[in-house]
């Protein structure tokens, strides 16, 4: 997964987690708070409703009190003032003024002096409702106030409908007794009145009988409350609205009336919309900030890291250490870029040095090749041109001896023989020196060489050159080395040939070829019991034309061991000698298991 994807994913997960957490928290704290607030508000509303109704009752009681505590009414109830009836009871104005449906003037004896109902709708006088008449039987508290301030008011659940009722003792204007009766005003709590209450309280109200099935059972189960204490129930009726119920008890604490208010859940809705708006804005902020963070991350880190990575990849693919990655700014990524560039610089320096080294090497190789070519040309010339005069000297010496036979004395003949012998020696030296130069020039091809086998065949050839000699060859089995077959053959021919030559004066010659371990590496040796030499001169042996014996004793040009040494050097090996005069000589040589001259 790329760094970019991972960053985006982490941001998304963190932000979503935050959003979900906040959503849950707001549901359990904020929304619950709003719901409680709403409930309190609804409860308050319902108290207002109850309060408004109580105010109505108080007003009604006040009106009844005004009428009852009035000298004219005091006189009228005893049948003494007919003018009171004429001016106050014959017209309907008072019904409208007080919005009352019933007016009763009852004498303390129980007889109804004046009583009428009134329909406020069509302005007709009606009968006093039957239900009310049953409540105003003699002895009832409504008609028999016990003292001058003994008026009462409240709600009556009449069969005709719920009614607000106020009853006041009829006394003088100075509120002096004796009480002559009671004035009772009644107002139906009908739809219109409920509507009026609705307008006052700004609530949508309806009334329900307590026993109505629509009334919540909790209300019906409420035990009889202490007088006139309203019982209020508030509950949501759905997500958009809630219901409030106020239980109103009757005047005597009997079954009363339920006022129901439908209220929109504005607070809860507000809470919800606020929460939603909050979450939405949080989401918007989150998305925006995520985008900003991503953008910044992309700008400041990701793109630069990607660029850096691509740059390094390109440079790696092209192998061009002179290229540089671009470095902008002074932060950690820029520092990384600088480190990469410094590394590239070092790499470039190394490459340059290496290139210079390989150029020098190539120059040296070229110089070496030129030298080899020159040597080759030189050898070629030597091979051709140095022999021709020798051949002339030899040929014409012989021609002189033949053609002028008898004309030279014995000393002259001897001189001619010496000339010819010297010519032969010179010829051999040329041949040997050419061999040495060939060994130097020739390419070394490495392969596995069976030295034991090679030595046996060399020994057999030597035996053939002088079949009359008796020489014991002791050649160890299984000796092998890695090297150039041709060159190693030359080396063995020289070493075994020397041993053969220098044991020529031994009646029982012994030549040994074997190997031993010195300092953990294999050392080959060729050992003979021949003439040997003084070890003090051993170092001179390997220089060309250096001899420790006269040609008269043992023939030779002194190039053989020089050739052997050069062959060993070209293989990365070494040759050295140990000897004792008249006891024999041992030549050691080493060949590396692998490697050697490059």
């Amino acid at each position: 997964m790329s760094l970019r994807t991972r960053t985006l994913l982490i941001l998304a997960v963190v932000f979503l987690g935050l959003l979900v957490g906040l959503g849950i928290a707001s549901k359990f704290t904020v929304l619950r708070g709003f719901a409680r607030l709403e409930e309190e508000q609804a409860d308050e509303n319902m108290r207002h409703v109850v309060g408004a109704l109580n105010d109505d009752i108080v007003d009604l009681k006040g009106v009844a009190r005004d009428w009852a505590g009035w000298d004219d009414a005091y006189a009228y109830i005893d049948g003494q003032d007919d003018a009171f009836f004429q001016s106050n009871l014959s017209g309907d104005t008072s019904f409208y003024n007080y919005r009352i449906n019933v007016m009763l003037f009852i004498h303390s004896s129980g007889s109804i002096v004046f009583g009428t109902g009134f329909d406020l709708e069509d302005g007709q006088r009606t009968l006093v409702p039957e239900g009310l008449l049953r409540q105003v039987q003699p002895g009832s508290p409504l008609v028999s106030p016990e003292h001058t301030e003994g008026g009462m008011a409240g709600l009556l659940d009449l069969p005709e409908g719920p009614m607000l009722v106020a009853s006041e003792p009829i006394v003088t204007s100075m509120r002096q007794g004796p009480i002559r009766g009671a004035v009772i005003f009644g107002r139906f709590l009908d739809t219109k009145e409920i509507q009026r209450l609705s307008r006052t309280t700004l609530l949508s109200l309806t009334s329900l009988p307590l026993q109505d099935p629509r009334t919540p059972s909790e209300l019906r189960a409420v035990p009889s409350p202490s007088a006139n204490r309203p019982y209020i129930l508030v509950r949501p009726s759905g997500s958009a609205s809630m219901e409030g119920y106020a239980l109103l008890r009757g005047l005597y604490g009997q079954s009363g009336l339920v006022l129901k208010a439908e209220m929109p859940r504005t607070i809860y809705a507000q809470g919800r919309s606020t929460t939603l708006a909050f979450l939405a804005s949080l989401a918007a902020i989150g998305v925006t900030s995520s985008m900003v963070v991503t953008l910044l991350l992309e700008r400041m880190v990701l793109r630069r890291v990607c660029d850096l990575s691509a740059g390094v990849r390109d440079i790696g693919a092209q192998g061009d250490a002179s290229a540089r990655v671009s470095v902008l700014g002074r932060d950690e990524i820029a520092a990384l870029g600088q480190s990469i560039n410094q590394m590239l610089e070092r790499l470039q320096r190394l490459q340059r040095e290496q290139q210079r080294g390989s150029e020098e090497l190539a120059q040296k190789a070229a110089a070496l090749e030129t030298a080899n070519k020159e040597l080759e040309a030189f050898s070629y010339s030597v091979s051709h041109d140095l022999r021709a005069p020798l051949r002339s000297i030899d040929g014409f010496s012989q021609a002189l001896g033949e053609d002028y036979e008898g004309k030279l004395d014995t000393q002259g003949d001897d001189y001619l023989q010496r000339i010819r012998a010297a010519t032969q020696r010179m010829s051999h030296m040329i041949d040997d020196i050419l061999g040495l130069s060939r060994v130097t020039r020739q390419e070394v091809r490495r392969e596995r060489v069976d030295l034991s086998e090679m030595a046996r065949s060399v020994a057999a050839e030597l035996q053939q050159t002088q079949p009359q000699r008796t020489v014991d060859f002791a050649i160890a089995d299984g000796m092998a080395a890695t090297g150039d077959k041709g060159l190693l053959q030359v080396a063995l021919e020289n070493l075994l040939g020397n041993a053969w030559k220098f044991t020529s004066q031994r009646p029982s010659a012994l030549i040994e070829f074997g190997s031993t371990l010195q300092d953990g590496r294999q050392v080959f040796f060729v050992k003979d019991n021949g003439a040997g030499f003084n070890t003090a001169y051993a170092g001179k042996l390997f220089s060309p034309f250096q001899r420790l014996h006269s040609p008269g004793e043992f023939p030779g040009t002194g190039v053989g061991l020089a050739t052997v040494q050069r062959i060993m050097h070209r293989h990365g090996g070494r040759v050295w000698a140990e000897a004792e005069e008249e006891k024999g000589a041992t030549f050691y040589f080493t060949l590396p298991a692998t490697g050697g001259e490059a």
Partner: protein
Amino acid sequence: MNGKAILLVEDDADDEALTLRALRKNNVLNEVVVKRDGAQAIEYLLALHGEGIKGTGVLPALVLLDLKLPKVDGLEVLRRLRAGAETRMLPVVVLTSSTEEQDILKSYNLGANSYVRKPVDFDQFLEAVRQLGLYWLVLNVGPPSRGVPR
């Protein structure tokens, strides 16, 4: 022993004298034509088989060819001979001082019939010439001088 000529291509007067002496001492009586450089040798051979300047138009029985020659060297002479239709079967013996491996290889590669090193020891030289004469002029059956398939 047939009567055809021997062509000796040799620039060194001493070597020429010694070779002639060796041939004589070995009783080789054929005519010996000597050319001192490669250009002369080529000219001689091409003129021979072309117009027959010497009147015979007959190729020599044997060419003794030195390698180190002025103007045109022995290897080039050999290459030209082997390229010519008339001369490509002519027996050529390289007779030289060199024993360089590259010379031997190049000579055989260009179609030399034999490669003989001139020994410094005149006795050995005599012996070499004797054997050469015996082999190439007596024992060996050369290519027919006429009727070369074209």
